[in-house]
Structures are given as C-alpha cells and as structure tokens.
C-alpha cells in the first residue's frame, strides 16, 4: 500500500492566502483566517467563482485540487475556505498535519 503523502495545514494556509492575495490585490500576510470572506468576494457566488482560480493556481494545480461549489456554499470566513481545502486533501489520500 502506498504511503500517504503529508502536508501541513499551515503550508496549505500559506498557499491559500497567496492565491487570495493575488486575486484581490492584497498582501497575503494581511489576510487572516478570521476575516469575513465578504471582505474579498461577493458571498457565496464570488467565492464559488474563485474556486476555479484556486483549483487551477500554480499553488494547488500540481496536487489536482478540485473543490466544488457545495464545498464552500456555507463558507463565511477565510477559515472555512481553509477547512474546505484541508478536507479535500484528506479525502484525496493526504495526511494533513
């Protein structure tokens, strides 16, 4: 049985902040997990549209991230988006530390 790949939640968060920052013209370090998503997108349609950018970004594309609308339909904070990303990794053969 193949060994599970491992990635840290902090690294995923760093990647997520980088993609949000690039899309919204903000510094990644200024984006905090407790921020309301409506600071960055129209909620939830703008967040759902952002998934295409997220899934196809250089940060996540190599891992094949494929979030879908229902994963973020109830997301209201950056932490919810982070949880959705971590959830996808866990469900697709990764160990998230």
């Amino acid at each position, binding site marked *: 049985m193949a060994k599970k790949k491992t990635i*840290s*939640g*902090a*690294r*995923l*968060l*760093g990647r997520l*902040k980088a993609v949000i920052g690039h*899309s*919204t*013209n*903000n510094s990644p*370090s200024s984006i*905090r*997990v*407790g*921020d*309301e998503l*409506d*600071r*960055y*997108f*129209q*909620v*939830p*349609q*703008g967040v*759902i*549209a*952002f*998934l*295409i*950018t997220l*899934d*196809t970004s250089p940060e996540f594309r190599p891992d094949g991230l*494929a979030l*879908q*609308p*229902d994963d973020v*339909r*109830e997301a*209201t*904070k*950056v*932490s*919810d988006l*982070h*949880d959705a990303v*971590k959830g996808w990794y866990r469900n697709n053969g990764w*160990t*998230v*530390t």
Partner: protein
Amino acid sequence: MRCAVLILISLCVGITSATAQTVDEVRKYDRNKNGRIDKGRELEIYLLHKASPILSRYDKNFNGIIDPEEAAAITRDAKNDSLSGPIGAQRDEILLDLAEREGIPVEDLADKGAVTDKRKKLDWPTLYVRRDKTDVPIAQFPIATPDAKGARISYSRDGISKEEVWTVDALASLVIANGRLHDKVDPYAVTLTGYAAVPWVEMRRRSSSKVGASETDKFTFGTDGELELFGQPLGGVQYLTFGADYQTDRIAKASIADATVRWQPYNDNLKIGTWFTLAPNLQFTWLTALDADYRTVQDSGTYTNMPETNYLWAGGWLKGLLRYHLDAKRDIMLTAQYDYRRDFFSKRIAQLLAVELAFPLDADGLTSVSLEYKRGMDWTTLDKFDLLTAGLNFKL
C-alpha cells in the same frame, strides 16, 4: 428634476448563533478567587479568551498572549490531526506566522477566532424577503449579502407639487434547491452543480395625495427555475434562469403574462464578484447580466403604462460597486447601475441609470442614509425618471 425624501424599512431573514460556557470554565478566570470576574485584567483576559479559541486553549498562564512555551505546545499538537474548524485554522495561522515572520500579532488572536456563523446549506427550502427579484439568486444566503436590498415601505413628498406618495415594494420567494449533484467535478469542464425552483410573489403599491392621481398597485406571481453551471472554459460560475409570471392588481383588472431568460456570470479572472483592492480600504467589484423577456399585455391595469400588446425585450445590466471600509462592519458604498433594453416589436429603447451613495450610521452597518439619482426609462413600466432621492435605510 423631482426631489423626494424617503423613509425606507428593509427586511431580511437572518440566522444567529450563540455560545455558552459552564461555571467551571468561567471560574478559571477568577484568578484571585473572590467569586467574581473583576473589572480590569481578569475581565480583559476573559474576553480575550472568549473571542479566541486558540488563546483559550493555549494561554495557560492567563497573560493574554502566546508565550514561547505555549507556541511550542501548539507546534506539538500540530502533529495530531484532531483540531478542526476555527481553532484548527487559527493554529495553522500561528504556525505560518511563526515560520514566516517569527512572531504572532497578538491583536489577531484577540478578535478573530469567534465561532463561525454557519448557515444552512442548499437542499433546504429558504424564505427570502427582498425588494427586487435580482437579489434572490439560487445560492445567496439571506443576510450574507450586504448589498442585497430588503423590502421597502417608503414615503415621499414632492416639495414643488406638494404630492405625497406612499409606496410598498416587497417580494417573497421560497428557494427549493439542490446543490450537491456530484461527488467530484472537473474545474476544466462546465458542470451543472446545482439547481433551484423559486416560486415567488411580488407586491408593489403606490398611493398618492395628488388630486386626480389614483392609487396604483400590482401583484405578480411567478416561478423561476435556476441552473448553476461551474467550471471552464467559460470560467467561474454562471447562473441561468428561466422564469414565467403573471401580473394582475388588487381588483384583478390588469392581465400581463411574462416569460424571461437570464444569464449571470461570476468570474474571478474578470473580477466579477471579486472585491479588488484599489488602495488601502478602497475596493471595487462589478456585476452584470444579460436577459430576454417576452411580455403580452391584455390589460395594463393601473401600475404600468404599456400601450402595446406584445413586447420582446432583450438587453442587460451592468453594476459597479465601490466601497470604502470605515471599519470591520461599516462601508461607505457607491453603486452605479446601467440598464439597457431594446424592444424588438416597437423598436423602443429603454435605458436607466441609477447611482446611489450610502453612508452607514450605526456600528453594525444596519442603518444608513443614502442619496440616489435615477434617470432614464424603466423598461418594466415605461415610466420615465429624473429623480433625486434621499433615504434613511434600515435592515434587519
């Protein structure tokens, strides 16, 4: 130009959440054991911990910050996979800050860890009360959209003609949606990811004090079917809406049947629905939609002013939104919307420009004052406007 003063009452449906602590949990903060949380440091630490799950868990010496030993405990716990939700996200943020910046901004710990206010997913019928149907799309949550307009009761008085006008503009709809059609989707292909059936009823009533002006009203009943299309090559997410409705009035005189189709995209690459930061605290986004509408008028009734029997309108609207953050909950909002429609039967063109500036009054941004300028022709009623309106807005 007419001038008017409006009192606006907006209604939205919202969901609230609450958290609770046991007596033993609260007692930890009574450091001098006098049976109460004293004003000053004890209360300050209690509030900090209440706002931040990560502080509550790791600030063992109750000094309100994460010390190096406590940060080491967070790093140790990172190896187990048990943390999730807000506390897990905040833990990841602390680790990221430690790795990237060798420090943790304490102010971020203090007020950013509150329990997320989860709202209902789709698959549940959801009731919306709005001013316009454009604010009731399939995936929209009732109160998560600050720019959605609520139902309105308004009063206006024309300073020149002395005409007083009361209006009621309200729309109620029930959204029955299914938002999980696939276990996996391919972001490189267009996929149907959700649908909704939206029965709705709309009421508009206008009552004027002017001699010779009659009361006018309309009631409209309809159903929309909406499809959510997600993915490339068109990008982002798109909503395709098919609708049919019937309009009458209080005395069942008016008779107008209507069928419509609308396409509305959201696209991060084009910044449609993405708030793009132009300067510190200043953000911009825009929205657009295309639609076509076939309308047959047997009797136009009192509310509308439609001389022809058949109309085939095609066109769309473009909306730009510019907001300036005053603080976390309050924005000054400038909205400009341009509508363009062409009737293929009469060759009539209807254009309407509406610009509104809104300034929040209370700390939560629920009350605001606004100034709106509207000029052009409303294609749904053929009414012409050159109107400046000042308003006091309240939304629940």
